[in-house]
């Protein structure tokens, strides 16, 4: 047999099909190339999405981190009693007559004088330009401080106040000597002076608590704008959304999962819920405007209306998540409870609901996170308005006072002309994302801790 085979194989003539699994034919090469191309497309797609995400987060963070720092002056100010309390009787009403302009002049003179004292050259910078270093917000703060505590009149205090947005930008690298040449609001000589003031320790960048606590400020004072009102507004709304959406969502899910008969009405509700989950959020804004503001006459811009709109908007997603959690509880639990004589209602409230609670909670937190970041519907119910006053406390009707919300503040700052507001806007996003990250981590931890495999 072996002889015959070896004899029959012609060594010189080419084999009709000399193929092997170990060598690739042209077709196979093509197919394998297609295979690796296909795989590369997949990797490219993932790389693209993730790199866009990374670029976006990186630009926002690099723009926004500086919002938490603020160029601040610190120099001794002698509070001249003659000027700030002309009658000399320390009466609050009398002292109120000295407007912020009086304080502005005082601060300006004292800064110029102090620079001269310290022997800092103000070459090329007029007194007016030095005065332009001080934020318009600063005299108002000094005035509030004096009015709150008139006893400090006549003393010399180490006063700390904000510098204007341009100087602030210089300290953060947003304003450079190149841009200053083209900018009518600031000159290169002023930047030189700022350098000298920094080296003398008069001007420095410090952590900016007021970014988190102060209310919004007007277009001319980006350095004073803060998130205080927006944080309160968002907190009020989230509180109201939780107490409205959780009972409603859980009740609706329990009914649909456990009690609803299979009929047209139930079908209608189910189709409705899945459609509502896909309705654009701005439509809910129109609903809120038409029903809660125009029809029910609730106050515009109030957290109450915002919360009602967000509740209706998140309700479908919460119902979907809650139903999934309830469905995940195995029927044997229900059978056991019914078997020992519990009523259907007792079964649900004593057994199914507690077992589904972690899932419901996780879904609710995720729903809240999406409500916290929602902007469009809130624009329509007036929360984009400029609000400079804190809303009242939650028990004093604060839910009805005008307020803004975190994401809306991001939008309204981004649409202002001064580039300093872009920094604030990105800073507000950092705060917003921090809240979202915390909420998501809580949801993940809850899921990890309580997740059961039946």
């Amino acid at each position: 047999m072996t002889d015959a085979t070896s004899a029959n194989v012609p060594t010189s003539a080419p084999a009709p099909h000399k193929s092997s699994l170990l060598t690739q034919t042209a077709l196979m090469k093509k197919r394998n190339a297609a295979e690796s191309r296909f795989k590369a497309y997949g990797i490219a797609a993932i790389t693209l999405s993730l790199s866009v995400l990374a670029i976006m987060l990186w630009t926002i963070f690099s723009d926004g981190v500086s919002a938490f720092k603020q160029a601040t002056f610190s120099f001794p100010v002698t509070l001249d009693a003659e000027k700030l309390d002309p009658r000399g009787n320390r009466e609050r009403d009398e002292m109120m007559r000295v407007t912020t302009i009086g304080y502005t002049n005082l601060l300006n003179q004292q800064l110029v004088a102090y620079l001269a004292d310290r022997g800092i050259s103000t070459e090329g910078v007029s007194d007016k330009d030095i005065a332009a270093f001080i934020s318009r917000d600063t005299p108002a703060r000094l005035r509030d401080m004096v009015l709150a505590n008139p006893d400090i009149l006549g003393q010399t205090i180490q006063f700390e106040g904000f510098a204007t947005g341009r100087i602030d930008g210089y300290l953060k690298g947003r304003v450079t000597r190149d841009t200053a040449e083209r900018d009518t609001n600031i000159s290169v000589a002023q930047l030189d002076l700022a350098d000298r003031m920094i080296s003398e320790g008069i001007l420095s960048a410090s952590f900016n608590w007021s970014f988190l606590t102060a209310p919004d400020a007007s277009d001319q004072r980006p350095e004073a704008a803060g998130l205080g009102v927006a944080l309160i507004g968002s907190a009020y709304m989230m509180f109201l959304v939780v107490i409205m959406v959780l009972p409603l969502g859980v009740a609706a899910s329990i009914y649909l999962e456990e009690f609803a008969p299979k009929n047209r009405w139930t079908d209608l509700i189910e189709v409705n819920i899945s459609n509502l989950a896909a309705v654009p959020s701005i439509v809910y804004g129109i609903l809120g405007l038409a029903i809660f503001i125009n029809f029910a006459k609730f106050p515009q811009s109030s957290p109450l209306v915002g919360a009602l709109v967000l509740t209706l908007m998140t309700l479908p997603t919460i119902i979907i998540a809650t139903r999934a959690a309830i469905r995940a509880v195995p029927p044997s639990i229900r059978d056991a409870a019914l078997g020992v004589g519990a009523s259907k209602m007792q079964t649900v409230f004593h057994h199914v609901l507690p077992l589904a609670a972690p899932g419901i909670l996780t879904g609710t937190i995720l729903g809240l996170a999406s409500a916290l970041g929602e902007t469009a519907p809130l624009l329509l119910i007036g929360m984009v308005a400029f609000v400079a006053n804190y809303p009242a406390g939650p028990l004093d009707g604060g839910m009805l006072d005008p307020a803004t919300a975190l994401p809306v503040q991001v939008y309204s700052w981004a649409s202002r002309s001064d580039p300093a507001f872009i920094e604030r806007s990105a800073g507000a996003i950092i705060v917003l994302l921090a809240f979202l990250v915390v909420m998501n981590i809580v949801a993940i931890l809850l899921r990890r801790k309580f997740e059961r495999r039946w």
Partner: protein
Amino acid sequence: MPILLLIIVLGVLAIAGFILGRRRALASVEGNTRRLHSLPNYYAWHGAIMAFLPAMAVLTLWLIAQPLIIERQLSDFFPAEQFENDSQRILLMADVRRVAEGLDVAVAAGALSNDDAANISADGTIRDRLATVGVALGADVTAQVLEASQAYRKLAATGAFWRSIVALIIAVAGLFYALRITNGDFRARNRVEAVILGVLVLASTIAILTTVGIVLSMLSETIRFASMYPFKDFLFGLTWQPSFQGNSELGLLPLLWGTLYISLVAMIVAVPTGLFTAIYLAEYASPRVRSIVKPLIEVIAGIPTVVFGLFALVTVGPFLRDWFAVPTGLGSSGSSVMTAGLVIGVLNIPFISSLADDIINAVPQSLRDGSYGLGATKSETVRQVILPAALPGIVGAILLAASRAIGETMIVTMGAGAAAKLDLNPFEAMTTITVKIVSQLTGDTEFNSPETLVAFALGMTLFVITLGLNIFALWVVRKYREQYE
């Protein structure tokens, strides 16, 4: 009695019902709970519910009905033709309400006595007297409005008085009824559970009510809009030029074009990227890679859209302008169809990829094995077996993503521009339906001009388009779903 106080009193009565109901049930069986039909707490809850719920329901109805009834009563004060016109009546009633509130504030501040407020005449001093207590009235108060608002105060006070009386009587009656029928044989559990079931049913109808509310609120305003502006011109008009002096041209087509163009760009980005992401994650990635990459991709979906809006405004827009639009001479604006489209596309990637991922995973393994057995490579299997099998689901996912792109608001508001144009150039600023809804409805607006009401018609258009897409998507999925069982 103020409403809050009234509700607190009702709450106290409910607690009383809770305690008394339980006590009475236990007393009726001499403390032997085994002789009770239900657990003692059900009798307690029954007492509380009977004291609270009927009174609360009446109170709610009263609060809704009272303003309507008062408004009808006040019609005597005004000429009939003024009161028949819808928008005039709304303005008049707003005036009346404001003056009445002003009088209330003045009485509360002690600037007026209660009799003064009821008898003061419209001699021109009323405005100044109210101004001293910090109530600013816009126009001078006419005699009619003043009389009407005095009548309004009187009616409101009478209404509030009877409201409290009626609510309290019903609450006490409910409490006594509950106590009277409570005894050992009374089926408290069945009654309480029926009430709870009713509450559950009510909660589940909120979804229906929301839809009805959306449709009704937009439909009524759209009809008002159609009565002020020819609806045909709205649907087929080629120019969008609102001016608040009148003579606006409010054509839908430029907005619709901008919306669809931007969504098209978005889908061109999102569909291939999302699909390839899903295919890679489902077919190629190792479990480890999948467990890291999938959540990372889904992070994109969790980021608020306003963040993408700022990204479009600050980074993508200027980048496209400086590197593409200006060098090619196609445009000079940072906000453009491309800017908004690309960013919406990125936002939609995780949406498509996670839906497609689920659908691909639902294709049974036997189909893959059969294909491999015939010698197909992985990519051939994906292209020729898995994708055709998953196609209906994927089409559904794409349609849902398209509906999201059309309804997206913040990214286009910040990245697409405000100029309504019919143009093909993707580097030109264009605008969308959602942008115009926002711009027509933000700020102080009066709801009686076509320029404002058009926003409701736009909202209706948007609602119809997205709802149509959603229903179509669900239909496609249902109709063509292969049954693999």
